[in-house]
């Protein structure tokens, strides 16, 4: 059974929807969320964390609607890992971690801090430092330690490493991979998704355009956007990345939101495509079959 599930949620700010009618299960084995900048990934993550109430649709926590669920239990089960900015710049990092423990009523909050810090590979002596005195990687580890303090079953990770140097990124990802929690991972890095998430969802302009098993999905995309995304990633020593179509700003309107950038756009794309099952995958594209046909050419 999935712990968290979005059911046809529409999300937005100040009444303006930015995520439209998305359904998504957080299943075991890691779930990846990829997509263009501004496509609504963070927004969706905030909704899963109960920080944003859907304009319509529901988030299900087990068999309860999140709004009505037992928040104490939920807060214990689900924890976020944001970027390193997620530490109060004024608080000593030890206090930040201790706060997480104290909220759960742990009277020995302070005492457990070193233990947690060690768990994420930090010197417990750093507890008395302030965030700005730490390196980016260390800060990110503190953030993870604090999330773990609650003893969560699910971590929601929103680009946990994108602010870090590549060499540091790798070590943090190792840490994340070693944690025995479920995870929803948001990242731009396709390789990371491939490594950490069994299933993935591709978001474009606030809609899920494709979802399925990660490996499968990247090897043989069924949506032109997934294809473009995959092929645009430069590879060491590989050929220059390919730009497919043009990247004009997306005008609003009905129809497939990707049609202006789609090299395969056809007249039928003026109709909004529905998510449908294509070869074990959910795709929202009228020409998914054609895409599948062109895809493997540049497999990773």
């Amino acid at each position, binding site marked *: 059974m999935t712990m968290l599930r979005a059911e046809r949620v529409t999300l937005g700010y100040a009444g303006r929807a930015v995520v439209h009618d998305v359904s998504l299960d957080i299943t075991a084995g890691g779930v990846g969320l990829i997509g263009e900048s501004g496509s609504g990934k963070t927004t969706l993550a*905030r909704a899963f*964390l*109960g*920080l944003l109430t859907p304009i319509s649709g529901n988030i299900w926590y087990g068999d309860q609607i999140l709004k009505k669920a037992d*928040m*104490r239990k939920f*807060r*214990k089960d*689900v*924890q*976020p890992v*944001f*970027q*390193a*900015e*997620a*530490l*109060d*710049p*004024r*608080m000593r990092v030890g206090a*930040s971690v201790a*706060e*997480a423990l104290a*909220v*759960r009523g742990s009277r020995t909050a302070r005492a457990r801090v070193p233990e947690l810090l060690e768990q994420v590979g930090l010197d417990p002596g750093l507890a008395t430092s302030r965030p*700005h005195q730490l390196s*980016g990687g260390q800060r990110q580890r503190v*953030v993870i330690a*604090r999330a773990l303090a*609650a003893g969560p079953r699910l971590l929601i990770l929103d680009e946990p490493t*994108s*602010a870090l140097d590549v060499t540091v990124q790798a070590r943090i990802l190792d840490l994340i991979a070693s944690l025995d929690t479920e995870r929803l991972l948001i990242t731009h890095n396709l390789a990371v998704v491939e490594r950490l998430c069994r299933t993935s969802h591709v978001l474009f302009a606030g809609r899920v355009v494709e979802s399925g098993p990660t490996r499968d999905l990247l090897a043989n995309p069924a949506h032109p956007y997934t294809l473009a995304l995959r092929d645009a990633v430069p590879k060491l020593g590989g050929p220059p990345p390919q730009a497919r179509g043009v990247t004009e700003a997306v005008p609003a309107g009905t129809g497939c939101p990707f049609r202006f950038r789609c090299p395969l756009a056809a007249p039928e794309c003026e109709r909004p495509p529905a998510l449908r099952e294509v070869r074990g995958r959910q795709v929202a594209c009228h020409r998914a079959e054609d895409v599948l046909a062109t895809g493997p050419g540049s497999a990773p």
Partner: protein
Amino acid sequence: MTSPQETTAEVPLRRLLPRVPDRFAALGAVLIVLIVLAAIMAPWLAPYPDEPRPLEGSLPPGAAHWFGTDQLGRDVLTRILYGARTSLSIAVSVLAVSALAGVTLGVVAGYAGGWVRDAIMRVTDVFLAFPALLLSLALAVVLPPSVTTVILAIAVTWWPWYTRLAASVAASIATRPYVDAARCLGVPAPLIVWRHVLPNSLTPVLVQMSLDAGGVILTAAALSYLGLGAQEPTAEWGLMVQQGQTLFTTNWWIGTFPGLAILVTAFAFNMLGEGLRNALDPRARKVT
């Protein structure tokens, strides 16, 4: 990629002060310390008791009375020293009251958002629409003129500025990941505001307060000047200027020195505030 930048709003003032490179701020701080000392030490520093000697008349500045004496034969220097107490206590009280009220409301508005913010901000707008001096005037008419009235009247018009400032800072703080993180941990909202939002919103407020101190002293002086503030025989600079005003051509010293005292004090606070603001963020400003 660049590492996440600390925004100035969150630079703790403490961490900033020792390395304020701004000469103005430093000079302002030194002047303020001197003025505060003068105010505290007034009874010891003052060359004469603050008593009228009407039969002596008004003497020009000289060796005996550096700043001369007023119509009632009171030593102007003495009264300026005592007046520093009045002016400073007005400034401190006004800022304390209005910052307390303003920041509390502002932080709540900024954190809560939605209709709470709208409601608070509309009320704030109404008060803002009254220029400080005018509402103070109206209030000072309602209440009998006195130092307390001045403090109340100015505070009533001053708090909205802090509400606005605090609300805008708090609103941006409220969207920071660390606030989200705290919410996800299940920290209750009042505690989040108290522990995370409030401390991180304070730096700009403190800077604004030091900028405003000069303005408060000027407004208080203006109210006293209009006869709506401090009353005889309280020594208050605005009142002293007002008393000296009609004697400007004949006994210039009676109004000039208190005027200079106001100028120097307001100037010192402005220097400190502007210097701090300059060091912190060239754009943090009174108008939001």
